[in-house]
């Protein structure tokens, strides 16, 4: 059974029923799922969670479905990697990588939100689901939707990375490439959603979809031994993930599962699209939309719908923000791969680069614990690093060739340019 009281407007607090709606009729604020925390306090214990499945559904009491989950049985519950070599290189005592680059089945944290969204869409009786995406959401909706037997319409900007397009088409959805940027796609989709009775996971199913991101935060707390880290660096596109991680920590505290929430949350954005980081760093009242221009395409949302809430979460937590240039993003990807064997996409490069900066700036102290939020897999954004990689050594199939070309000329791990 579910513990959802209803939907509530985040701006004016008006209450709405549990339906496929997402915006307040009175003030246009976004609607959020409201839970019966008094009941939840009686039901949710560490033991109950620990005895749940090894997936995001171990937290199902805190997720907005009534019946059994029907999608995403193997999603979530990703590794929290203790990053000792990275910590040594950055001169910090304790770093962890929350590694959703390995999330099942489409290798990004979107598998979490889609598992919840499609379970809810099925509860509402939708037979067709849809989304507007910068890539990861497209992959997740295409895959989970195939598994659930749903018709799918997926809208993307026309210039997404090849792996993301292939990684959507392979599941045989209807994939629509829009000649515009993500914000154009989103605006079109809001009009399509209004006209056709489809479950748009990021539009009319959004309040339920967004709750799936809390599981990223719950897992971090549980995997750290029921505590929160001193610092958490999180990438921001719409700002929803960052906001929901904060909500997750606060909920665990409210339910008595953790003693305190001592985390400083830091927002990481790319230089070509940093409206939230800009607002935080300049202490500005308003968030100014931008026209994105960055290699971090999964973060290329110029008008972030949760921007204000992400900013509020960062400020409440005493955190700050950082911005990474295209070059720093690439270096971030390589740093993480070289030290910890984790290949993340450009969004992860942003987060890694900003973490490094915050340490260098002294905003993260060397004796404090840090979690770096990695949200997607590097195979999806190969174009970004292709040109900066050293090439392999090519030899003839002879021992002599190997000894002359490889052993004589290399030190541990370094590649040679081609002759």
């Amino acid at each position, binding site marked *: 059974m579910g513990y959802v009281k209803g939907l509530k407007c985040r*701006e004016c607090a008006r209450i709405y029923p549990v339906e496929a709606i997402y915006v307040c009729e009175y003030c246009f604020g976004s609607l959020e799922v409201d839970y019966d925390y008094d009941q939840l306090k009686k039901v949710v214990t560490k033991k109950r969670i620990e005895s749940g499945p090894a997936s995001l559904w171990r937290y199902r009491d805190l997720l907005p479905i009534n019946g059994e989950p029907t999608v995403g049985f193997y999603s979530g519950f990703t590794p929290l990697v203790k990053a000792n070599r990275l910590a040594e290189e950055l001169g910090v005592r304790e770093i962890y990588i929350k590694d959703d680059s390995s999330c099942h089945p489409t290798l990004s944290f979107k598998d979490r939100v889609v598992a919840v969204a499609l379970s809810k869409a099925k509860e509402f009786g939708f037979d067709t689901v849809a989304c507007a995406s910068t890539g990861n959401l497209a992959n997740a909706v295409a895959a989970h939707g195939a598994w659930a037997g749903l018709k799918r319409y997926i809208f993307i900007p026309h210039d997404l990375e090849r792996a993301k397009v292939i990684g959507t088409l392979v599941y045989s959805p209807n994939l629509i490439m829009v000649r515009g940027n993500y914000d154009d796609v989103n605006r079109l989709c809001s009009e399509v959603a209004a006209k056709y009775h489809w479950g748009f996971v990021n539009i009319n199913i959004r309040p339920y979809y967004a709750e799936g991101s809390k599981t990223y935060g719950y897992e971090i707390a549980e995997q750290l031994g029921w505590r929160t880290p001193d610092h958490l660096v999180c990438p921001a596109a719409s700002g929803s993930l960052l906001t929901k991680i904060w909500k997750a920590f606060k909920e665990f505290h409210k339910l008595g599962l953790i003693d305190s929430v001592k985390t400083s949350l830091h927002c990481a954005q790319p230089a070509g699209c940093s409206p939230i980081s800009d607002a935080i760093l300049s202490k500005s009242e308003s968030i100014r939309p931008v026209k994105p221009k960055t290699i971090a395409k999964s973060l290329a949302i110029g008008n972030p719908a949760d921007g204000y809430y992400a900013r509020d979460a960062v400020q409440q937590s005493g955190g700050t923000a950082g911005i990474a240039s295209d070059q720093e993003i690439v270096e971030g990807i390589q740093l993480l791969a070289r030290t910890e064997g984790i290949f993340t996409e450009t969004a992860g490069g942003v987060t890694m680069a900003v973490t490094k900066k915050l340490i260098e700036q002294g905003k993260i102290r060397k004796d404090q614990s840090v979690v770096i939020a990695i949200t997607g897999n590097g195979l999806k954004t190969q174009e970004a690093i292709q040109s900066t990689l050293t090439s392999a050594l090519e030899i003839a199939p002879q021992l002599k060739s190997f000894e002359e070309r490889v052993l004589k000329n290399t030190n541990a791990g370094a590649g040679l340019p081609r002759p």
Partner: protein
Amino acid sequence: MAITVRIPTPLQKLTRDQSEVSVVATTISGCIQALEQDYPGIKERICDEQGNLRRFVNVFLNEEDIRFLKKEQTPIKDGDEVSIVPAIAGG
């Protein structure tokens, strides 16, 4: 200037269920005034007490966000299309 305004679902109750209406205005702020005249109550949904557009209301003039133009002072010409769109997320 006669323009078309696309009305989002949450506001259609106020425009007698029409998703597209016609008004005459020369700026975005004039357009809001004209909407209020024809469909009373609409202004208070999309504007705050000071009369400024609420932060979660997106207004587009011919597909361009007015925040990239002159915001409420953006001039409008005959045949232009204005869309009112609630904020949405994604990824």
